[in-house]
């Protein structure tokens, strides 16, 4: 039993190393960047950077739990923002900008449409992967390309600006300094995390991810589960689109390039296993925070911005390494029968 305790402790360390790293990194920046970094408003900045990525990570983590990848999220994000603008904004008279539809719909109508787009693409991906047994990685990669292509078609590759205030409420407004987006994101995490730990669906996700056959033999329907996971991911991507567009009041079809990989990285850093079945959305959020702190810190340190991407990459690789080691570490098995091999062998 004593041994067991040690094992658990070891496991705990492996599972939560992320928080330790966060602490170290934060302290490092606090001491090196100084005042600028620890101001309240900067804390809000760190959080609000984390918010959009954070929402995407929820979806990514859920898909990863089923042992799949979703690389299409950033495509959904860009398409939904572009399409929303196309529906909402006033068409421009000059030739410079993108041409809007002129429908000038009310944001309250547009936002649900965005969600529908996200859900639809998620469903399509799910179908292709579960029914046609296509490789999830490549399917989602290709889907990303397709969605971006459509976004380009709609926008003509143009910047689209001037989303209405009502629409920007989520991403843009701050209630005495505290960004609404951050609040929403945090709540989202609390809720989703609770749901995944206490709902049947949460169980399904992890079971399917950890051992698809056993999950099926235990009465789950892996195909449904996986498809639904992708649908959620699509929805989250649309939601993130809403949030980001609210912050920028501007969009372009190249919006959010490279975000997907960051979401995978963040999830893995946060202890979500690429082999599926292990990890929590809460942990994934920690991963997001780490990336966000690093970005912000390096930015304030006036580090050559070109380093930032490199540093990121290294951190991600480190996370992956630790993840891989986690699977090699074999905990001991309890033997309740200590019978000697020697005994009662007929000589």
């Amino acid at each position, binding site marked *: 039993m004593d041994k067991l305790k040690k094992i658990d402790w070891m496991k705990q360390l492996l599972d939560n190393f992320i928080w330790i790293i966060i602490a170290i990194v934060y302290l490092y920046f606090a001491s090196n960047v100084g005042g600028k970094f620890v101001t309240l408003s900067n804390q809000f900045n760190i959080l609000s950077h984390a918010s959009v990525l954070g929402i995407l990570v929820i979806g990514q983590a859920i898909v990863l739990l089923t042992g799949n990848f979703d690389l299409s999220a950033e495509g959904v994000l860009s398409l939904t923002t572009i399409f929303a603008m196309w529906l909402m904004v006033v068409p421009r008279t000059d030739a410079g900008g993108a041409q809007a539809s002129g429908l000038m719909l009310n944001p309250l109508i547009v936002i649900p449409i965005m969600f529908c787009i996200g859900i639809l693409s998620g469903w399509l991906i799910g179908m292709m992967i579960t029914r046609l047994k296509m490789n999830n*990685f490549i399917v989602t990669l*290709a889907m990303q390309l397709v969605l971006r292509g459509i976004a380009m078609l709609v926008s003509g590759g143009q910047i689209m600006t001037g989303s209405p205030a009502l629409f920007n409420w989520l991403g843009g407004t701050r209630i005495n300094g505290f960004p609404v987006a951050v609040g929403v994101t945090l709540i989202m995490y609390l809720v989703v995390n609770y749901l995944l730990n206490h709902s049947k669906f949460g169980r399904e996700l992890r079971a399917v991810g950890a051992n698809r056959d056993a999950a099926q033999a235990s009465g789950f329907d892996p195909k449904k589960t996986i498809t639904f996971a992708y649908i959620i991911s699509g929805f989250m991507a649309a939601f993130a689109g809403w949030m980001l567009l609210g912050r920028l009041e501007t969009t372009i079809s190249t919006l959010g390039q490279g975000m997907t990989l960051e979401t995978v990285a963040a999830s893995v850093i946060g202890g979500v296993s690429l082999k599926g079945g292990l990890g929590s959305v809460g942990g994934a959020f920690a991963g997001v925070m780490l990336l966000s702190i690093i970005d912000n810190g390096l930015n304030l340190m006036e580090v050559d911005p070109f380093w930032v991407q490199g540093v*990121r990459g290294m951190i991600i690789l480190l996370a992956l390494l630790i993840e891989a080691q986690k699977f090699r570490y074999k905990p001991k098995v309890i033997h309740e029968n200590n019978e000697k091999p020697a005994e009662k062998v007929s000589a």
Partner: protein
Amino acid sequence: MKTRASKFLAIILDNLIWILVLAGLVIFSVLSPSFRTPFNLVNTLSRSAYLGVLVIGQAFAMISGNFDLSSESGLGLTAMVAGLFLASTTNGGFGFEVSPILAILIMIAVGLIIGFINGILITRMRMNNLIVTIAMQMILRGLIYIISPGATASFFPKSFDWLGGGNLIKIPMEKGNLAIPTASIFIILAFIIAHIITRYTQFGRNMYAVGSNPVAAKDAGIETDKIIRIVYLISGFCMAIGGLLIAGRLDSATPRIGAGLIFPVQAAAVVGGVSLFGGRGTMIGAFGGLLLWSILDSGLSIMEVSPFWIEASRGLLLLFAVGIDAIKVKGMHQRALEESLATTQIGLKDNKIVTD
């Protein structure tokens, strides 16, 4: 009956790529006179030569049942490194202005190092090859910006550009003379060599074995991990050559070079019949994939199709390819099952044959 039909389907699917290539050629030639100009046709290949080299690398990885998504950044990095060593400080280089040969050697070294690291992480650390190479892609891209930093290096010796941008021979034609780009000949040679390696060397066949069934390969005494490491080395080498081609073609190395190239690379390989499930596909097929890709590319652009449509169509082509691949493998299982059940004596009154 059903079996014969599915067999026929299989044959069609196996050679689908060439049917598509021919179709593409015919359609575009009919639609656009400027497509069928000799100039355009000889350039069609040279334009996508650097792509083709990456396709070779990718095909190697995929045949052995792996992926290499880092190649696009690898190409960028090798090109940039070479650029920095070749170009004068005024043109954004380090100002070493080393000899082209040395520069090329450096590129190849860099490419091999990348491949080596990938291989080690995947075989020794047992990390997921997709995610490793994706992460590598980010790191390398970052590295490009760090070393360059963010600037373009350009103006290399002609001898360096010869392979990527130079001409082999000029054939006089009534309207100016027709230059045959070195790259277009080179890429054909490259594919022939790749074909020889995959088809006619022990290593090549071992690679197929590993991709087809690692366990069986191990039983046959093949060192699967070693094979995979070598495959990634080859892929790294291809990155370097790709870098050489594109740098020569542009006579400069920009930080963005190769960004997003992984899509066409994947697509060309998969459309060419290289299976995502490993062990299937030939270099000739991959070459077909490349041909189709560059024909579509030049055809669509010449016909002034909106580049946004081109973007979208690429994604669709990739999806289509992956779909075909999946169907192929499924049909294969179906056939195997049918054949195994054909011999059985048991339960004949049940005439359903169900694959899962």
